[in-house]
């Protein structure tokens, strides 16, 4: 905070969001897409904490704690689904489960 403008934090957060988006768009592996989602969640959470600091109350920090909790739940369920897909199709390509359509 000591003289660091808010733009720096928001810029880092925007870059993090950009890299997460690139990860999701560029890959076909489901685990990679999970990594990208985690990057984007971190970017959002960083924004919340930044606004909490520069806005002068703690609501943003509490929201970012909830984001962390929900990310844990999301990672657990998503990995269970990924493991099931791997057991059935023997790979984790996002395109493979489209076999479910006939």
């Amino acid at each position, binding site marked *: *905070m*000591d*003289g660091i403008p*808010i733009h*720096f934090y*928001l*810029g*880092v957060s*925007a*870059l993090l*969001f*950009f*890299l*997460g*988006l*690139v*990860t*999701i*768009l*560029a*890959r076909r*592996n*489901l*685990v*990679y897409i*999970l*990594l*990208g989602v*985690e990057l984007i969640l971190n970017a959002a*959470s*960083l924004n919340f*904490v*930044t606004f*909490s*600091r*520069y806005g*002068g109350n*703690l609501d943003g*920090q*509490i929201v*970012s*704690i*909830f984001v*962390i*909790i*929900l990310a*844990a*739940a*999301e*990672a*657990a*369920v998503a*990995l*269970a*689904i990924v*493991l*099931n897909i*791997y*057991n059935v199709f023997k*790979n984790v390509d996002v395109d493979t489960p489209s076999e479910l359509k006939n």
Partner: protein
Amino acid sequence: MTAAHIAFAAFALITVVSAFVVASHRSIVHSAFGLFFTFFGVAGLYLTLGADFVMAAQILIYVGGIMVLLLFGVMLTPSRRSDFVPARFLRALTLGAIVLVGLLWVLKNAHWATQELASPESTIDEIGRQLLTREQYLLPFEVVSVLLLAALIGAAYLARRRKIVD
């Protein structure tokens, strides 16, 4: 150039560089370890923002929990060929760059109503009070604990080994 500036620059550099490794590396194990350092970098940024409790939660839950889960995911789903296709990566970079330019445009042109604060002090007391006060965050706090329980039971049920019936 104060200590705060140097700390911010170091943590921001760690975060962005390792996030770039996540996005661009050929090997998924390297990408997962890049994400590990990204989480640490973001935790450091929380520290420079004076959010000590969120930093601790970030390290405990992200680095200690989610990262281990993701590494299990990486190890349990070995794939023979690399997922990295340069042409697709360039396309994704282009699309992402459009979004990034939009974000930076907003960042530059918006008027951010910030206020100067006193130097940060420990937030743990106040966060605990707000989480357990009925008028504030008690209800979401309880709901999220039930949600977490349900999600973990569901995950354990889904991931258990069973015969595939065909």
